[in-house]
């Protein structure tokens, strides 16, 4: 069983530290622990934010004193750590149009790594990733880990605007930008399906611990699904 540490970080916030480095296979378990906390302490909790190796819990100390919540969290975490999830993770397949017209950094992979576009596509799409954290922007899922050949540091100077749907790589992680935003990740393609739906019933298809794979699509399918090229997005 993993060791863990629980400590207050503010009057109304406690951090549960479950490790020190990314362990994609552990993300489903972290998600379960976060769900258990949210469910069992729902009366006193404002937010539970799981991430790669830890869980931030925001609570109301006048409803449950700090000492009590620390004990409760400790027993929940201990119990959940002893019972790894047995059912498989939810799997999500994301269609991606990999092309220079929507993924200008494909060029960087050929220049710096000598990989052809086809090689980048097959390396990126033949791998299964885990949602290790969600945040930065609403619906932004951090997916780990990309194959070694595709590890690429982010741009030293971020782009002022990366179009919504951009599929990108930074270091050993990959992600889809759900909304257009500034960003320094290496963009290699675009997913034409909206991944943040503030007006829908499901805000985001992702949750921590899910597995994700990318399915290459051709230009006609991309456009049929509503995909646009960078020139028209900017």
């Amino acid at each position, binding site marked *: 069983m993993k060791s863990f540490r629980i*400590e*207050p*970080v*503010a*009057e*109304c*916030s406690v*951090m549960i530290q479950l490790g020190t*480095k*990314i362990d994609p296979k552990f993300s489903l378990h972290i998600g379960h622990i*976060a769900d258990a906390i*949210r469910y069992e302490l729902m009366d006193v909790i*404002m*937010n*539970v*934010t*799981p*991430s*790669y*190796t*830890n*869980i*931030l819990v*925001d609570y*109301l*100390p*006048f409803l449950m004193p*700090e000492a009590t919540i620390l004990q409760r969290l400790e027993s929940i975490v201990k119990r959940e750590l002893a019972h790894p999830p047995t059912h498989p993770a939810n799997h999500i397949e994301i269609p991606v149009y990999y092309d220079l017209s929507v993924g200008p950094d494909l060029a960087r992979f050929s220049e710096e790594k000598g990989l052809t576009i086809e090689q980048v596509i097959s390396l990126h799409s033949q791998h299964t990733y885990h949602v290790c*954290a*969600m*945040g*930065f*922007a*609403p*619906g*932004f899922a*951090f997916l780990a880990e990309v194959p070694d050949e595709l590890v690429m540091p982010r741009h030293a100077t971020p782009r002022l605007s990366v179009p919504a749907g951009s599929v990108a790589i930074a270091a050993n992680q990959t992600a889809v930008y759900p909304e257009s935003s500034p960003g320094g990740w290496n963009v290699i393609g675009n997913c034409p399906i909206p991944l943040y739906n*503030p*007006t829908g019933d499901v*805000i*985001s298809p*992702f*949750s*921590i611990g899910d597995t994700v794979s990318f399915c290459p699509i051709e230009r006609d399918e991309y456009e049929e699904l509503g995909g646009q090229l960078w020139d028209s997005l900017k």
Partner: protein
Amino acid sequence: MGLIEVIKPGQLSLIHDFGRFGLSQLGLTQGGPIDDYAYSWANFLLKNPTNSAVIEITLGQAAFYIHHECMLALCGGDLQAKLDGQPVANWSRFAAKKGQLLTFSLPRNGLRAYLAVKGGFEAPEHYGSCSTVERDRLGGLHCDGKGLNAGEFIAFHQHQTIKRSRKVTFRFTPDYNLPLVLRLIESYQCDKFSPAAKSTLYESEYTVSQSSNRMGYRLEGPALEAPSDSLLSEGIALGSVQIPPDGHPIILLNDRQTLGGYPKLGCVARIDLPRLAQAKPGQKVFFTQGDREGLQKVWCKWARFFGY
């Protein structure tokens, strides 16, 4: 149904209830009134439930037309509110008559005023809250994260008005223009900062930067040396003090991103955040070490008083 009409929204007028909670695991920020103390008093003066929707008016220069008589309360920054040209006392409850015009001009103290109506303004719930968060496209009158616009009507339940006004005692009304002393609860990566970096923080004078907003307040002043080892993104608590590579502290507030990977020294005490949220660019800021237990007690007292 009673109505008030936005004649002009000024720089930024936003509908807010207490905030959007329980969705941070999807990256949705809490939003809510950035000066929750003034927000809570405004609702308190009208005996409203704690979560009632109010209008957060930033930097003044706004005007609202009263279509139906109502009881209003105004707390927070002094934006020189006037009802048909007559000054309205800040931190007070008052009656407004049909046909009157409520105007705000430039801030004289603080930055943001909270305008509440008896029973709360009517705004649709969007994922559990009407709080307006532009970046997330959530909340507001049209559930699209947009601020109030000229010509829009905001509804409330009609009610009897009473002449007698009510005011927050002077002991509880802050002077937002005084230099700020923020109590820091050390936590997160605090131990990884060098003693020199920490003493720089506690011994220096900082000023509020121009690029401060509802996401966070940036401070200018002596840079701190941040620990060099890289950090995985993690949940950011309200009031976290993060040190980006340029060494200038950023204090993260209501509309902050839910995860961040810069090292953090800890969190500013919750009871100090309302005054920070009202600080103007150029205002002086100092840090002092805070005691979590004591600060927690004081915050709990206010939370119980306002009925959070």
